[in-house]
């Protein structure tokens, strides 16, 4: 929360993108989340990513459900479309929206409560359908809006603010998504925008569902010594499994400037995206291939066993086919179709019905 609205004044040297927009133009209304909430940093990373991608605000739709995380769609891209749905139903609503209008960029924001409890089934089926969307889970392991109960992502042994330990096994959205065919799976940390922004950009450019699990600490209820999703714990246990770098369409792909990691490091993978851009990936562990599902799954599990949190763009399927490819739908958004094609009349319906008799 803040007592005032962010002053309209901006830094005199703030640059504009190709659309003539500054970073500030991608902001939304002032956040009403707690001071220091990780979600606000994710919001800032989304603003940065959308500005850098030169996303047209009126060609984007922000989708959310219920929870602290789901409030954040109000805090960026105030000129975009949005739908704040029922708890856990964001994936289904987005599936419908994407089916009707494939021309928009869908940004779904959810949390560990919204996606891993009440909306778990919804999420799984959106992943199976490979809906063309960015799916961000702002994951803090706790129900912040209802005063700090454990969520489905809380680790065994982690404690609540008052000291009780969690005894139920967590649902890891990354492992779950890998196991049910997700084509883009990443994990990042709200406190590391250097990593998060390129992942979000790659996710926005991915054809299909791009799942980004962001550890986003709850500064009020889950940033204490017994927490495994605090700023400090995440910093101490985060291991960047894959370095990702997003290369826009108009830039030539060159080798990354970042030096290869000291612990051996894997080979460089350049993954072309459907819009002509590319993602450069370099695994930090030898033998790990981020375009191989089994390898990614094994690596994340191995990290987990060592008490590490694997981050980075962990898996990407370069041959991803999204919902429209699978269903062989019309290429144009329904809104662009003439009425006669969209609603061909009773005779056409009869003909269709006949085929199924």
């Amino acid at each position, binding site marked *: *929360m*803040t*007592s*005032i*609205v*962010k*002053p*309209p*004044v*901006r*830094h*005199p*040297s*703030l640059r504009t993108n190709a659309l003539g927009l500054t970073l*500030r133009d991608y902001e939304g209304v002032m956040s009403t989340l*707690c*001071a*220091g*909430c*990780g979600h*606000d*940093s994710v*919001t*800032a990373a989304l603003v940065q990513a959308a500005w850098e991608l030169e996303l047209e605000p009126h060609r984007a739709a922000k989708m959310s459900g219920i929870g602290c995380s789901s409030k954040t769609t109000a805090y960026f891209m105030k000129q975009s479309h949005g739908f704040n749905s029922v708890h856990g139903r964001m994936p289904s609503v987005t599936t419908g929206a994407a089916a009707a209008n494939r021309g928009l960029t869908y940004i779904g924001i959810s949390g560990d409560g919204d996606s891993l409890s009440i909306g778990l089934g919804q999420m799984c089926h959106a992943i199976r359908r490979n809906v063309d969307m960015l799916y961000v889970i702002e994951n803090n392991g706790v129900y912040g809006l209802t005063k700090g109960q454990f969520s489905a992502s809380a680790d065994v042994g982690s404690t609540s603010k008052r000291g009780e330990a969690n005894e139920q096994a967590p649902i890891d959205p990354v492992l779950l998504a890998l196991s049910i065919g997700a084509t883009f799976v990443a994990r990042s940390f*709200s*406190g590391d*925008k250097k990593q998060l922004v390129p992942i979000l950009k790659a996710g926005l450019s991915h054809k299909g569902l791009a799942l980004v699990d962001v550890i986003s*600490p709850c*500064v*009020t209820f889950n*940033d204490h010594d017994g927490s495994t999703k605090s*700023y*400090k714990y995440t*910093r101490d246990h985060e291991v960047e499994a894959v370095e990702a770098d997003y290369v826009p369409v108009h830039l030539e792909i060159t080798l990354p400037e970042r030096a290869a990691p000291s612990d051996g490091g894997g080979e460089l993978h350049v993954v072309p995206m459907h819009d002509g851009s590319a993602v450069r990936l370099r695994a930090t562990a030898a033998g790990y291939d981020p375009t191989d599902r089994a390898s990614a799954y094994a690596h994340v599990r191995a990290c987990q066993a060592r008490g590490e949190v694997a981050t980075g763009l962990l898996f990407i399927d370069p041959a991803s086919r999204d919902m429209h490819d699978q269903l062989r739908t019309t290429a144009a958004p329904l809104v662009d179709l003439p009425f006669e094609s969209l609603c061909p009349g009773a005779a056409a319906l009869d003909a269709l019905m006949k085929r199924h008799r």
Partner: protein
Amino acid sequence: MKPTDVDDPRYYHKVVDCQWACPAHTNVPAYIRLIAQGRYTESYLLNRQSNVFPGVLGRTCDRPCEPACRRGRVDEKPVAICRLKRVASDLRDDIRPFLPTAPEEKNGKRVALVGAGPASLTVANDLLPLGYSVTIFEKNTEPGGLMRINIPSFRLPASVLDEECGYIIDMGAEMRYGTPVTSLKALLDEGFDAVFVGSGAPKGKELDIPGRHDDPAHVHIGIEWLANVHFRHVEKIEPRVVIIGVGNTAMDCCRTAKRLGATDVKVVARRGRKHFKASPWELEDAVEEQVEIVENRSPRRMIVEGGRLTGMEFDVLEWSEDASGRQSSRVVRTEIVPCDAVILAIGQENNFPWIERDIGVEFDAHGMPVVDRVTHRSTHPRVFFGGDAAWGPQNIIWAVAHGHQAAISIDLACQGRPVTDRPPEGMTLVSVKNGLHSWAYDNDFDPSARQVMRHEELTRRFQALNVEVELGFSPEQVATEVSRCLNCDIQTHFTPKRCIECDACIDVCPTNCLTITTNHSPEAELRQRLSAPAVNLSQEIYLSEPLPQTTRVMVKDEDVCLHCGLCAERCPTAAWDMRLFDLLKPVAGAACGQPELVNA
């Protein structure tokens, strides 16, 4: 780069751009807040601690604070600091009960002040309450110096000046009016413990061109002419007047000429507009009064026919700049401007015929006394200089600043201490947090534009010489203008050990001032890799001690910080706090050489 030491008062002082730029370090944001609260008397008194003449300076100051104002870097125009000062002065109640008084019992030390201008009066203001016996020698019959005789009354009403000089003189200065000092030696021989020379730069510069002395009745020296107008020796001028020079004296001359009957007034400048010495607002006021400003003309000769001035001939110049930025001119043609009178306003000089050269006061090759820049002491241990007399013409606020410093020196000298033993600056830094997201100042940004000063109608302002042109701000204008101040004295204070590096402050900062980064490169390089490059090198960057979780550092570019407090509102651990900075300025007698008292 080393972590910033914010315990040094200079760091936060520099953040308060207006106060840093003001020679007398007036606490501008604090007095603007007092105006906003309608506490005009307190605002006036706070002003007076530093600049002594808020009413005079609220109308005439050269305003070094305004070009420095941070608002000018984030918005089009700075806060109208100077005219807000006038508001405090115009609307105050009687302040006499709150003024310091001189003790009945004197300390036995006698100080002579030469000239009753702003520098001397400031010295008197600082020394009288300490028990010094102060005698002021003034050649005219009224106090004020150039404030009275050279600044026209349509800019500065005499009543304002009388009142503010009176506050000081009535503390018990012995005034010797009509008493020009003709010998410094004689003055020293009278047994004064110290002599302060604040006699200004009273001599107008000459222009030696052909014809200059052929019709002396119609060629005037600017400041002498203004003085003659003040004393009513001159009550009219011919219709066509040419003013040579384009400083503030030229502006006063041309506007005065318009009031004494001139109809066609031209101000002629050697160079182009961006090199003019006059303050932009004084130029605007002159232009509003239909004075013509003529650029790139160099005087060639005065044309006198039959003993009567009929015009002036000028070289028309064309200026060019070489690669190193040096300007050079060439004459394109010549031009004759017909006129009936000429006023020379090309500068002022010092004049010390009354100081004997063999009494220990050294002079340099230019005829200027050798004066220490810090202590204001000449090479004679009992003689001090300040104001225009010290280093040539500046403006009133500089004279006041000199007066304060000289008073410190005189006090030290009279108490037998070395004048270099100067009291240090101190500061207080107090949190303005009232509660959750509640601050003891209005942190909401007001996007209003700078208010335009209301002026007397053109037809009415020429009816008499003393019709004040500026009418002051209306109450609505005051309310708007005070809210434009960014409260730069309310500092963003950082406590590194509390930071959890959540990035909240960085994300919320509207002007990209903050960065968390590694501290591995020199400052010049660091400035380039911040959230927004810190390109304004005149502004400091703050660098914290290493942060607890990652040992990275918090960096803040002070340049365009709005002091909106959002970093502190979004900080979950109160690592950022908004704190009111108050600079404790050394003054004569206050804990001289005792820093612990200054810092108390």
